């Protein structure tokens, strides 16, 4: 069936600002939106730029705005939209556009690095594993689904107003380590994000949760961090301080 795609274009070599270009193509109802973009690129316009790799929602390359909503282009099919086969495709908001649908993700990953995204332990001889019960692990399970696609951070209205705010994706990764029963740096992690640029930047507006392509309850996870920060202020520390 015939589909119409209106795609945001920006070529830094010639364009001063973005513009929209229309393409018409034949697509199946079960085609992914990524398939449609590929068809445009292979059959009509090889200059169209966007990121993609695994094409089944696990590598996190192809978050973009499809008909006004942030989606992974490889995880949405033509039939998932009720817009009369008309599609408007735009780059992720928040980030600056490099070319067409490709945005600069460096600020996103800089914030990711900031939260110390690695397990900090007291060390253990390499003979066996840390024990961890399934219930302890179930707490962090939602955060393990994260594919770093940046949909949540791009959607967050606080992030748009305050560039310093760490944003939902980085905080979700902080959550993953704070609540990992093996991690020994809970206290200092909580101190690090106990600020308006940290976890208190979140006003529970839930846009992150709404757009997450992996169904992660991001707002809820951030809420769990907030509660722990408050508890820490009131009660004894979980981590002995030097």
């Amino acid at each position, binding site marked *: 069936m015939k589909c119409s795609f209106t795609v945001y274009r920006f*070529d*830094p*070599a010639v364009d001063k600002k973005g513009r929209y270009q229309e393409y018409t193509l034949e697509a199946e109802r*079960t085609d992914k939106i990524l398939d449609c973009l590929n068809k445009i*690129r*292979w*059959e009509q316009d*090889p*200059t*169209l*730029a966007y*990121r*993609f*790799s*695994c*094409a*089944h*929602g*696990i*590598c*996190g*390359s192809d978050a973009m705005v499809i008909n006004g909503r942030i989606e992974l282009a490889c*995880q949405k*099919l033509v039939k998932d939209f009720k817009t009369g086969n008309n599609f408007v495709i735009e780059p992720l908001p928040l980030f600056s556009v*490099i*070319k*067409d649908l*490709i945005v600069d*993700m460096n600020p996103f990953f800089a914030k990711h*690095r900031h939260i110390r*995204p*690695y*397990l900090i*332990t007291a060390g*253990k001889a*390499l*003979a*066996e*594993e*840390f*024990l*961890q*019960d*399934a219930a302890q*692990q179930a707490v*962090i*399970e939602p955060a*393990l*689904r994260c*594919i*770093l696609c940046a949909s949540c951070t791009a959607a967050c209205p606080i992030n748009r107003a305050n560039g310093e705010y760490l944003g939902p994706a980085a905080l979700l990764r902080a959550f993953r*380590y704070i609540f*990992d029963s*093996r*991690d020994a740096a809970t206290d200092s992690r909580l101190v690090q994000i106990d600020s308006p640029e940290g976890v208190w930047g979140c006003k529970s507006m839930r846009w992150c949760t709404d757009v997450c392509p992996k169904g992660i309850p991001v707002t809820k996870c951030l809420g769990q961090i907030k509660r722990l920060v408050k508890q820490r202020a009131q009660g004894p520390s979980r981590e002995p301080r030097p």
Partner: protein
Amino acid sequence: MKHEYDIVIVGAGLAGLRAAVEIGGDTRVAVLSKVFATRSHSGAAQGGIGAALGNEEEDHPEWHMFDTVKGSDYLGDQDAIEILTEDAPRAIYELEHLGVPFNRTREGKIAQRAFGGHTRQFGAAPVKRACYAATRTGRVILDTLWEQSLQKGVAFYDEYQILSLIIRDGQCGGVVAYELATGKLHTFHSQAVLFATGGAGKIYKTTSNAFASTGDGMAIAFRAGAPLEDMEFVQFHPTGIYKLGILISEAARGEGGILLNNDGERFMERYAPVIKDLAPRDMISRCMLEEIRAGRGIRGQDYLHLDLTHLGQAVIESKLAEIASFARTYAGADPVKDPIPVQPTCHYMMGGIATDADGRVVVDRAGTPFPGLYAAGECACVSVHGANRLGCNALLDTLVFGRRAGIEMQRYIRATGSPHRSAEPEKKDADRLRGLMESKGRERSGRIRAEMQATMMDKVSVFRVQDGLRAAVAKIKELQERYPQIAIQDKGHCFNRDLLDAIELGHMLDLAEVIILGALYREESRGAHSREDFPARDDTRFLVHTLFGYDAIRGPQIFTKPVKITRFQPQERKY
């Protein structure tokens, strides 16, 4: 632009990052990747990583070794397989200490589940050997190793496409790469280079592999003088989603899922009475195609059903979460209620750049190293997978041999002086790219790619026969002749995907030719290589590795080397 490092790693999947974690901090390391590091295809690995921890039931590295040898149809080198399986428990504990969130047993230990071809007591019954994190095992290991690499100060060059190796006096001294965002060429001088560039599934029409899996490292090393080993062994995973090829992990069968034909029959009981649906991948893919040929595909079509409905929602949501979501999104099937339509999908290259067990690229039968050049992971052939890889052994391969390559590179650079600098090493690549960009030809890479993929799928997939292979090699040669006529329509320098497509296609055409030549040479059926005109395994003639060296004038030149057999003599392979 010029850069200088001690070691350059190409590829940011598990093999590359495991090496980076090993040597980062002490050594100046750069990791180059054509996609952002966490987008690497290792992240798509679902079901698990094999190690005889014995957390769920009795298990031993020796059993794991035997299964791997038998799974390889006796083509794997047993000394390397022993290293792999003996080192596996250490590799798992190490990952756990780095933070990988493995699923847990009731006692809080790392949980394990059954996987194809993994057995107790040398084939007696399936054993739970696969350590896993739901069905996102690769993804969480990838994230963990990436985060560890950042902490160790490894320099990442994301979205850099490698073009060639810098070689002077037979010694590898760096790489030339193309920066996607700017179109600029970069030279990276180093004392050693590790290729960890992954597979090449995109040579085939239906594949579980990512768009990035185009075999760049294998093809570039090949042209630089490194032989490719056992390339005819291409794994077709039994359960790709019908028409799409998206992987439904073997874990689905490890947890109790079964394959059904149109009669509702669990047909694997007939072919592998002992381990049934947990037979190795080569065997199940063949059986599935036999069923389809016999008219027992679903509604007479070319697919079968993977049935998980008896597992219950709780198991599906907790242990098979991602694949349940894939089935719902892409096949419109809810695995809690509906069977999933599946067919075999191109999944893994058993062959690759010939290396020894320390990641050194070797150039001949005697195992002479290519100074400064290393390879690990899917792009390498150690060989631990032989003619057919067992599920769960790929992640293990990347971790064990990625680490060993790291250790060996560090030893090498301390013992060896810097290679002599080449003058303008990027000039050849600059000329080649200019040629492509200015070509006035009428070909499109998309068209040639589609013809290559169709040919390979049709004639060089699970079943092969001499006439078909001859036709395929003629077709690939025709495509190679048309290749220089490709015109790049995108004249820009920022994320020029059109140009990248053409570069990748050149690599894939080289590899396709070697795959077919190997398949033609090997007049027997072994593991994933199934010749209909030679249905039996022939240990007298073909218990050898096939290797091809590059020759610009005469075409790929074949030689063979013996298989290393230490503990398990070849026997008939039954399950």
